[in-house]
């Protein structure tokens, strides 16, 4: 389901890039904090099927101005 493989060495770079993409208006991928506390990238089309906290939803509401 997730874009990233667990324990991928450049995971934090990928996560950071998803956040930046969100800033830039690319809503194609959402970050979700799963039950293990891991931040995983999920295609926006599938995010409703995934359990967990929608991290980028929280982020973009207040902290991250997208436009």
């Amino acid at each position, binding site marked *: 389901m997730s874009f*990233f493989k667990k*324990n991928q060495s*450049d*995971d*934090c*770079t990928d*996560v*950071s*890039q998803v*956040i*930046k993409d969100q*800033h830039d208006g690319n809503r194609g991928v959402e*970050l979700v*904090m799963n039950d293990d*506390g*891991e*931040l995983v990238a999920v295609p926006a089309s599938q995010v409703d099927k995934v359990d967990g*906290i929608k*991290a980028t939803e*929280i*982020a973009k509401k*207040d*902290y*991250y*101005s997208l436009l």
Partner: protein
Amino acid sequence: MMTEERLKDEFYLLSQAFSVKQFKLTSNTLTIALQTNSKKIYTVRIDLANHPYEVPKVFITNPKPLLDRSGNPMLDASHPMHTLGGENGCTRICHYGASQWHPGVYLYQVVVKVRVWLEVYENHLKTGYPLDKYLTTAAG
């Protein structure tokens, strides 16, 4: 200070997002251990003295002090690094801006932002890019 009802709500919401073994919540302080995707563990303290009426101060208490890629303690306010200085050797990080804060913001939301901040911080350690390459600024 939080009402007892608010404290219960905060605990419930935190326990939905995090293991109750991860955090300790009192009316004055939330202490929580967060593990990043790289499996590093950080300890975070959130000062709740005026919660939920003011933006709570968030500190990274372990590692202490938090170091940047160059090995320098991150104890100064820094716009590019999204820090607000330090107290007692602990880095205070930026999350919500005052203009964006309202009493309807719950602690679990703050913690998720801290979790994101930590991931971007680790990216800084890896790449050298400042955090504001990825995070925008919380005004106010």
